[in-house]
């Protein structure tokens, strides 16, 4: 099979925030950099990040600092985080935000002209640098515009399907370009995976079509370990109506600006269940909560700003107990602030322009006058490729990972705003260390037989099939997998539901191998969807196997048959790895002892 060979010192797979930040860093180090992305440049899922980027600039409240941010992140993650990553993240985020500003990003300002910060769940102080509710767009556009002037080669609408190795070390990747269907082989000294999340394994998701767990799967197939896969974040507020927009994100910024959650009886139900870990920091009356959102430093946060896992579970409870909204969610009301602010309508439009626009266009709702209907939506994968905290290198030499596809930073649950800072902090680190690795390890030989095997697999969906039926097509199969995961490994799971899902996943994998698609290789989304199925099935199985293993409820992982936290699980991560025989194995990995200095910070700040 013919293919074109392209050489780079560092190959970056994914052009969202992490990939672009890694590319900029590697390019600054003087090595040749190629970026591969499945979509057009600037369209990655990062554009959907709305609320802001967490960094303890202490511009709005000087009591904030990296220590508080570190402690908040650890508590939010139920202490299963890689503490060194959480430390680096908290320490380096402010510098990364200032750097972004020096590249042209514009954030909302304080009265004295500094970067304004807003409240978000789980953060002790207003910490999110933001621009209205389109921070992700600002970030990706800034990185894109800065990056294209630095000599980075961008290969748009290209999908990578296999990583190549020489002995243990990474040597490149096999890909196809979507437009013409031609095969490409990238030869590289180091590879950075920055492919984002796995949300498309679920039916109701805020994720774009691209989030099919490609990086997770490429790394897993290449021998790297995955960690924390059982922790899937269900964002408490996705749109629930109309059906065609179900799952689209409603930013936490709505609650940060004073929005409240109510059930069908008009009750502000978040006051009913405040976890003991957060009692001291949570308001016990609506008035105090309102003052907090308006910057009163003496007030405690409203219960709507508890961590995402908790808010999502409370919403599920209201709906299950028959107090939901007409379309199966609950009410999120920002319009009520008209009682408090004279210019509420203009204020909402200025602070939440995308939300105003989104609800007006898609649901015919004016959020300055009416409540929104919201419910949980699959949002983020805390789990991912297991990496070294300082360098972001996986267990496979030369293979790095950053952003959502890397695991460790967020533990059992991610705080809002920590994803955008994650992208910058660890994108930079991945780019820095990948370029150093590539310098020390020049590109190695390409394994031709592996290339042939990969291209053969890619072409299989076009094979003529004799006799047997060709199943229902790639889109329907993907839909069936999404239903299986939503039902069996969703917000609340049990051994029984997870085992049933695993059985289904096995059956779907057999059917996926027989998928056939019509047409030819030129811009054929049916073919692309068929090729993505391997990735979705792999991450679905990893999530399910880890979820079955963890017999407790912690963070985003809720087991109906083990409803409480179990101290025996409090000091271990789960690691998923491909055994030599191809089986997926799950094992416990004890969390290394936290150094005394960091432990003290948690005790003092937590």
């Amino acid at each position, binding site marked *: 099979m013919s293919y074109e060979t392209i050489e780079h010192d560092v190959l970056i797979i994914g052009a969202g925030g992490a990939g672009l930040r890694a590319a900029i860093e590697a390019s600054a180090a003087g090595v040749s950099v190629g970026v591969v992305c499945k979509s057009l440049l600037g369209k990655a899922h990062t554009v959907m990040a709305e609320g802001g980027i967490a960094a303890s600039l202490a511009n709005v409240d000087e009591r904030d600092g990296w220590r508080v941010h570190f402690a908040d992140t650890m508590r939010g993650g139920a202490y299963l985080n890689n503490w060194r990553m959480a430390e680096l993240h908290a320490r380096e985020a402010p510098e990364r935000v200032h750097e972004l500003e020096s590249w042209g990003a514009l954030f909302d300002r304080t009265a004295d002209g500094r970067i304004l910060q807003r409240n978000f769940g789980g953060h002790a102080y207003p910490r999110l640098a933001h621009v209205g509710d389109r921070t992700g767009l600002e970030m990706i556009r800034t990185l894109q515009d800065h990056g294209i002037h630095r000599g980075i080669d961008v290969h748009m609408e290209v999908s990578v399907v296999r990583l190549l190795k020489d002995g243990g070390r990474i040597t490149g990747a096999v890909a196809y370009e979507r437009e013409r269907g031609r095969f490409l082989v990238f030869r590289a000294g180091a590879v950075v995976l920055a492919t984002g999340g796995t949300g498309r394994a679920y039916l109701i998701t805020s994720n774009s079509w691209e989030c099919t767990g490609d990086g997770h799967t490429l790394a897993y197939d290449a021998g790297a370990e995955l960690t924390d896969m059982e922790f899937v974040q269900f964002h408490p507020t996705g749109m629930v109506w109309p059906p065609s927009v179900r799952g689209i994100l409603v930013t936490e910024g709505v609650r940060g600006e004073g929005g409240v959650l109510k059930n069908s009886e008009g009750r502000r139900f978040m006051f009913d269940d405040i976890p003991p870990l957060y009692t001291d920091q949570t308001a016990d009356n609506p008035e105090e909560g309102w003052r907090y959102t308006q910057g009163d430093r003496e007030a405690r946060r409203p219960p709507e700003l508890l961590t995402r896992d908790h808010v999502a579970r409370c919403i599920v409870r209201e709906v299950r107990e028959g107090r939901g909204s007409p379309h199966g969610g609950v009410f999120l009301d920002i319009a009520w602030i008209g009682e408090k602010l004279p210019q509420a309508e203009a204020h909402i439009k200025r602070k939440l322009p995308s939300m105003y626009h989104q609800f007006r266009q898609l649901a015919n709702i004016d959020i300055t006058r009416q409540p929104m209907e919201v419910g949980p939506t699959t949002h983020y994968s805390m789990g991912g490729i297991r990496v070294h905290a300082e360098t972001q290198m996986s267990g496979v030499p030369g293979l790095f990972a950053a952003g959502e596809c890397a695991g460790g930073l967020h533990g059992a649950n991610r705080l809002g705003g920590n994803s955008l800072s994650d992208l910058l902090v660890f994108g930079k680190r991945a780019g820095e260390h990948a370029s150093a690795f590539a310098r020390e390890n020049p590109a190695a030989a390409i394994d031709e037989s592996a290339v042939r095997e990969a291209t053969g697999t890619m072409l299989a969906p076009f094979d003529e099939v004799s006799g047997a039926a060709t199943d229902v097509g790639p889109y329907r199969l993907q839909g069936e997998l999404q239903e299986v995961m939503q039902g069996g490994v969703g917000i609340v799971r049990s051994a029984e539901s997870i085992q049933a899902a695993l059985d289904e996943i096995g059956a779907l994998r057999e059917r996926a191998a027989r998928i056939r698609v019509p047409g*030819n290789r030129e811009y*054929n989304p049916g073919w692309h969807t068929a090729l993505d199925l391997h990735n979705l099935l792999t991450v679905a199985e990893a999530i399910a196997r880890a979820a079955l293993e963890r017999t407790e409820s912690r963070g985003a992982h809720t087991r109906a048959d083990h409803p409480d936290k179990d101290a025996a699980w409090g000091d271990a991560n789960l690691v998923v790895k491909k055994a030599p025989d191809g089986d997926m194995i799950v094992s416990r990995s004890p969390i290394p002892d936290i150094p005394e200095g960091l432990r003290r910070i948690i005790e003092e700040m937590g």
Partner: protein
Amino acid sequence: MATATFRIWRGDEAGEFRDYDAEIHEGMVVLDAVRRIQADQAQDLGVRWNCKAGKCGSCSAEVNGTPRLMCMTRLNELPIDRPITVEPMKSFPLVRDLVTDVSWNYEVKRRIAPFRPRPPDAADGTWRMNQSDVDRVMEFRKCIECFLCQDVCHVLRDHRLHDRFIGPRFLVHVAALEMHPLDADDRREELRKAQGVGYCNITKCCTGVCPEEIQITDNAIIPLKERVADVAYDPLSKLVQLVRGRPRAKE
């Protein structure tokens, strides 16, 4: 349950419209129907989309002859008693079905002088900015690069002056740079010469199709034209040019 007919362009330049019937439900947008047709009837139907929430600008197409984001075009805005036509953008080469080759836009962006900040003005190495100065540029930075304004612009669409005119999207981009509170570069000569701001004759078609409701013509292009006029037709500099005997460049 109602059914609507979607008349979708299939194939390359030599392709044709094909009709597909699809069931439609309350709240559906055109992209939902296209994806349903793709899943059930035309698995290889080429279409770009990502976020399905009007934020990424990938699903640009022409719906009943108007450049629109498919994900933000609700079917209840359209007459469904006759076929709804869905076809690719016209200003760019067609790849296949609803997908066009928009790479020219990326080449244009690369040619525009990047952001160049003035030195930090605060002791901590950062800048101070007023919200009002930031707000002025925010409008332009809302652009999702859907390229619908490029598609509708007659200079590109009808006159094909892609080599001389950067189009409304990139005039907005230049305006965002020029009016950025920190930027210290001067792009006026480039605007007049290489970027062809003079080709725009203010028909406001671009403003009309912008899904982000950016006032492209009034807030970006006209102020840029005024700035260019200031430098090119300033009486004082004209006098200087006359004294130096250098002819003034004509548009």
